[in-house]
């Protein structure tokens, strides 16, 4: 057998091995109900419930944030993230979490915020009299 064939076979074998082992790194998107059912780490997309309490009290613990999230299925659960609260948290229109359910709360290990872009923000700033004077 030619050496290149051996290498080719080797690479294919390694590739299959990696695919199998890497499949454990992959998780699916889920809602709260599915996350509770599987008990595994999942990705979860939802919206911040702005009317429910957002608890972040850095005087007590700068690494504890708790809030309520509505998932795609409409279920609302408490989410706990052991990290600081990002600056524009309240403005987020969508939140992507990685984590698992722990009883009735979702313990998030990682959070990504999607904030409204300027395009969707159909708001036109109207010049105040002051800034008009300044620009003259």
């Amino acid at each position: 057998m030619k050496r290149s064939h051996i290498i080719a076979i080797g690479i294919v074998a390694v590739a299959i091995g990696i695919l199998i082992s890497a499949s454990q790194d992959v998780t699916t998107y889920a809602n709260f109900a599915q996350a509770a059912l599987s008990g595994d780490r999942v990705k979860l997309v939802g919206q911040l419930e702005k009317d429910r309490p957002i608890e972040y009290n850095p005087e007590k613990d700068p690494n504890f944030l708790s809030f309520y999230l509505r998932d795609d299925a409409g279920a609302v659960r408490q989410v706990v993230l052991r990290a600081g609260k990002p600056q524009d948290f309240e403005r987020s229109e969508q939140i992507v979490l990685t984590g698992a359910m722990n009883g009735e709360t979702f313990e998030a290990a990682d959070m990504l915020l999607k904030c409204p872009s300027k395009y969707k923000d159909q708001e036109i700033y109207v010049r105040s009299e002051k800034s008009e004077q300044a620009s003259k």
Partner: protein
Amino acid sequence: MEYIGEHLFPGQLGHFLVVLSFVAALLSGATYFLATQRRNTASFEGWRNLGRFSFLVHGLATLGIIGTLFFILTQKYYEYQYAWANVSDDLPFQYTFSAFWKEQQGSFLLWSFWHIALGLVLMLRAGKWETPVLAVVALAEAIIASMILGLYFGDFRLGASPFDLLRQTMDAPIFAQADYLAQIKGNGLNPLLQNYWMTIHPPTLFLGFASTIVPFAYAMAGLWLREHKDWLKPALPWALFSGAILGTGILMGGAWAYEALSFGGYWAWDPVENTSLVPWITLVAGIHTNLIARNTGYSIRSTYGFYLITFILILYSTYLTRSGILGDTSAHAFTEMGLGFQLILFIGLFSVLAGWLWASRFRQVPSIEKEEAGASREFWMFIGALVLFFSAVLITGATSLPVWNKIVQLFNPDYVGAALKDPVEHHNRYQLWIAVFLGLLTGAAQWLRYNERNEKIWAKTFIRHFVIAVAGAAVLTALNALWLNIHAWQYFAMLFAAMFTVVSNLDYIIFFVKGNLKQAGSALSHIGLGILLLGILGTGLNKEWISSNAFAMDGLIEGMGNEEMNQNILLLKDAPMPMRGNFEATYLEDTIVRQTRTFSVRFKKRDDQGNFTGEEFVLHPNVMYDRQFTKVVASNPSTKHYLTRDIFTHVSSLPKAELDQEFARQQEDSLRFEPYEALVGDTIFAKKHYLVVDGYSKTPEHPEYKAQQGDLAFGLKLRAYSLDDTLGYPANPMLYIRPGEGGFTLPANVGQLQMRVRLTEASMGKWLAMEESLDFHQFPMKAGETIDFQGYKIQFAKASREIKHPGYAPLPEDIAVAADLEITAPDGQKFAASPVYLIRNSQPFSLKDELPELGLHFRLENIDPKTETLTIAVARASGEQQTIPLEIAENAPRSDYIVLEAIIFPGINLVWLGSILMLFGLGLSMWRRLMVDKK
């Protein structure tokens, strides 16, 4: 409707140039194609000249588009959506560039600009390769130009024009007014992008992106003309150039993330980062097979493949970052503009063209039947290229999960989609082995020769140097293990591989090229790789959050267990806080300039015995507010650099009242203020505290108060004590009346006591009444004269132009005179006062001076220059001291703290040094190729 004040001409010119640029690029591509097909006929020159001409027209039109758009941005023509969305009146000029390429259209133009610049160089230098290479470049240019066309075919829009008018893109009631333009102002640039990195990173990265088309086009040309060997030589320096520039662009992105963003690192395996790294990896693989092909004739097919796939991957990266598909997996993709379909066509067209050419010519490409020898350099270099390719496949596969999801959802709409649990951990785990292989291969292959057939002779040299490298690497591995926190054997493997390539390539430079650095490009790059890997180990394994204090927070916090998660620490103002790593941090102060609020945090280091080592520094992380000053929009880090490590800090949170004015107002309303009366020298007993009234001031100081001429200001000086403590905190509330603006009160916050003290309208009324109750008596006086006022002898010593009045802030045009008075009290004590008369902007002001001890007030009311007589007015307050009403709240939440994240990055400079060395090696090799090829 006829709108007032719009500038429509630049937009019309821009639209025309966009169409011209697109058509000219198409024409250039077509004529260059025909010229190539007829390269051996008489009509060749005519077609080629037409191709050149239309490429130049395309270039000029594109420059015209860029100029027009830039003009619109600098002139702040907000009738254009692009200007309205990205600039504002107060945006400093240097950020116009950032605003220009922040959006998709601007960055397409930037990409196009570099293609044109590279195209012109190729036109001059490529010789016989000009027509096929430029045919490819012009085709790509036509497609990029189509991205900004903004033409409608029924409902389908081809491209997004940067010259759209705001009123066409948006439906708002304001456009019902003809003079809407006078009423709107620009959105301005996101403060995160107001940064010099945003000025230099995109042009470099896009030059890197653009330059990958050159090796691609040469590869296409080689296949097209069936000249499978000739193209290898001119393509190599271009590939080296591209590798150096694209690498620099990526490195700058990492440096930006590390230096100026609060990411807390230089690499996060974010999809946007990955998709620019992957083409660089395949390009480097291509450079290696290109070298093999030039030296031995092996690997021509794979060189074709690598250069072709590199550009396709650049297009794929463009698709991922611009189509919005990364949605919830990336923190920093472009705003989606509905170009996804066009981008897929772009990838599809080039993939099909390249794939078809490669497949159809595959069998004709010369290859050597006999296998590479196991001891030859080409064999192991090829293995290295395969390892690189493997790395690219792994990263791309994981990064493409959102694309797989989309595809599966096309057929099965119920599919929920898959995602990586922890991308950083996933990529690190696999790329670690890539790093190990690369380290070993780059170390070993350097000592092998091309076309090695006689394995016995060479084996002696190889084995000798191999032993040197292994021994050296073992020693260095042991030494580095002393400072690295290695807790798994895999990291030892990576460290050893890194050290192996460093030692082996150093050995190569010394013994093989004998220190001739001109020939050491590859060895320098490989040493750079080794140093970079060491730096990655240092920053990755030894990265330590020092913003944590298990000791101080123990028991205070519920549910805290996971040590690694404790990455933030609360710093109360002026209260030193011990932290991990024997540091003590103190939040000293904050200052506000424009929208930026900068915090000063002092770090002091202690030794193991707890004594201060004298090592001390102050860092200045800041946050930026939006223009309404209601929200924090960016948090910028501040880093202390040492040779061996960095200490990186940023403000991760602030009291909510500082972040959100609406909340602050609500909080203010919820405070329970109780009224009290202050009498100088007396003590006020509040519910939980007592306050000593030290006095009052007409020139009070307050952090939020900036004195202006004409202000009437009044402040109380208090010291606040808690009932069970003897430590007093200053509390200085004040109020002021500014002519034309009204009265303002500035409360004093005593964060430590959760106390807020403020003066109210009642205090203002009382104070004004005190002022008004003064009964001034006027005395015209000349210098040297003395009068008697209720037993006080007042001498007018002299008129002075030297103003020492504390309430006076000089301006150049001022005319100001002070009357220096000497007062002798009945008991013989002497005092001095100097009231001021000021003319500013033809407005007279009188600045009062007073002697509170005596209750005497002085004004300089008039100056008669003819008689040199000054009118001085004197009044004496009634003997009884007046109380000032004030209000005290004792339930004010603390707002004098910051939440800080602080990280130590050991070995970060190794990352920079290694990367720069690697890129420098690429650049050096390119220069060397050009010099050698010239001869």
